[in-house]
């Protein structure tokens, strides 16, 4: 089973939810950190590095001896990554999406592809958790190719938690598509509600079942709760606004380690998710009674 953890707004607690869920999973679990621009899971799940692999995308290489600067490659490319000017053909690899079209259209067979590094994929292990994370090289613009690479490392047969980047655009889609369920993390504030609505639209577009985790309950109002109620969206977990959580987080500590009383909450979250997924019906909304 693949559980994706996403949110519209950044900073709502995706990573907190992902890593703490992984810690209380009870059996072996893998966590894929797809927030390749700013991967943070490793700061909380400090593991031993098993493998580091350089990730690359195919970009064109022009054989000058065969190229006659006819310009067909440049005419084809949607991204201005290759262009014929005067008597030479130039490649701008940083703009290339790796579609392979220029090599296909070249009438002189002058283009072959070679890998251009975009980042690294690291596999770490700690206790019951295998962490696979992508880290985009600074200055590289495109995240989706690396995100797809991270996902290709998914070990079949092992349950997976996927920490997605914030937002609703193409990197997030690349991360969460194919998941069995999405947990959308939000906060009970106007920004949180606004961005949650965008995230709900996105997940519905992808047709994946989803529920909501409300973090820092108490800092704002109950419009997020009301929204979930109106739309019959299950609230899978509530985390109260607790300064001690913020402080533990700031130190890179797992909430369930620093504050063991929270273990049962994250265990409940997992239980709710499994219930929701196997029964295909909403769970009883979890309300913070304290």
């Amino acid at each position, binding site marked *: 089973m693949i559980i994706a953890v996403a949110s519209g707004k950044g900073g709502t607690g995706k990573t907190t939810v992902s890593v703490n869920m992984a810690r209380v999973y009870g059996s072996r679990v893998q966590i894929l950190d797809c927030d390749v621009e700013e991967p943070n899971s490793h700061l909380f799940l400090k593991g031993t590095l098993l493998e580091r692999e350089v990730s690359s995308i195919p970009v064109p290489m022009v054989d000058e001896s065969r190229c006659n600067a006819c310009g067909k490659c440049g005419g084809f490319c949607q991204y201005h990554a290759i262009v014929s000017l005067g008597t030479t053909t130039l490649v701008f690899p940083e703009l290339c999406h790796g*579609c392979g079209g220029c090599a296909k259209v070249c009438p002189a067979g002058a283009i072959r592809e070679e890998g251009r590094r975009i980042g690294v994929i690291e596999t770490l292990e700690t206790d019951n958790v295998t962490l696979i994370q992508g880290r985009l090289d600074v200055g590289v613009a495109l995240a989706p190719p690396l995100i797809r690479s991270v996902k290709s490392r998914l070990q079949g047969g092992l349950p997976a938690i996927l920490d997605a980047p914030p937002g609703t655009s193409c990197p997030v889609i690349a991360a969460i598509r194919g998941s069995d369920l999405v947990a959308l993390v939000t906060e009970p*504030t106007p920004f949180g509600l606004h961005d949650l609505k965008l995230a709900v639209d996105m997940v519905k577009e992808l047709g994946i079942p989803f529920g909501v985790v409300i973090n820092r309950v108490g800092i704002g109002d109950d419009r997020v709760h009301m929204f979930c109620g109106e739309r019959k969206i299950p609230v899978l977990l509530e985390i109260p606004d607790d300064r001690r959580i913020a402080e533990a987080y700031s130190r890179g500590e797992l909430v369930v380690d620093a504050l063991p009383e929270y273990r049962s909450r994250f265990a409940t979250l997992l239980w709710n998710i499994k219930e929701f997924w196997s029964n295909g019906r909403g769970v009883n909304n979890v309300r913070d009674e304290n």
Partner: protein
Amino acid sequence: MSGTKIKELVVVSGKGGTGKTSLTASFAVLAGHAVIADCDVDAADLHLILVPQVRYRHEFKSGHEAVIRVENCLGCGECMKNCRFDAVRTSGDGTGVPVFSIDPVSCEGCGVCVCFCPAHAIDFPERVCGEWMVSETRCGSMVHARLGVAAENSGKLVSTVRREARRIAEEHGNGLIIVDGPPGIGCPVISSVTGASLVLAVTEPTVSGEHDLERLIALTRHFSVPTAVCVNKWDINPGMTEVIERKALEAGARVVGRIRYDSAVTAAQLRELAVVETEAPSAGDIRHVWEKLKGKENC
């Protein structure tokens, strides 16, 4: 070149949720007559505080998408073989000729399938990805945008918003543009910081904040943009605050102040007010940061 030199302050964070947008709203109020650009186009929130009155809307088109004309499709599957982005879907009951379609969410608009379809059965229209708006707020003109759900976020919409803000600033004789930037360090952030007068990185005193700030400063250095740093909610972890400020200085950034953790920030948000428009304890910290920014920015 004609025109006065317009200064552009871009507020970014690397990590999301550090308080960048709340702070930008306060800066807009303190500046009084700046042109405001909300470049956090994927999850724009600034309008929830500044409450813009929209004057103009413009459709935003970027790139293309492939669309198969089912009636001309031979079912040969050539498109699926050629697509590098797993965007070709097939349906059908397993008997007879399969039906192919392109998933618009996965399609990257590269044009390979269009070019190599033996039946020329694939159209390649321009893609409408969202819209951008020019509005008026109590703090001045605002340019903002809405990116369509699951849209490609190449940075072009960010560029469009910035360009429009600059055009308005030139037209009205404004000397300052304040930009609410996106999170991360990818395309959209690159588009928002290149050519800026000053980038303010808002971070938080956590291991995540420290880690992400390092990558963000590496990015702004890569693009030679002057960078200032401010730690928000600093009292959650004073030790970490000091570590971050020291590292920022070592990396060549300037430290422009600290803002305390303040529950009144959400209270202000609920009232659709910037923090500096209330009596919140952190308002004074924000004013102090603003003064330091003004001094350093040649603003």
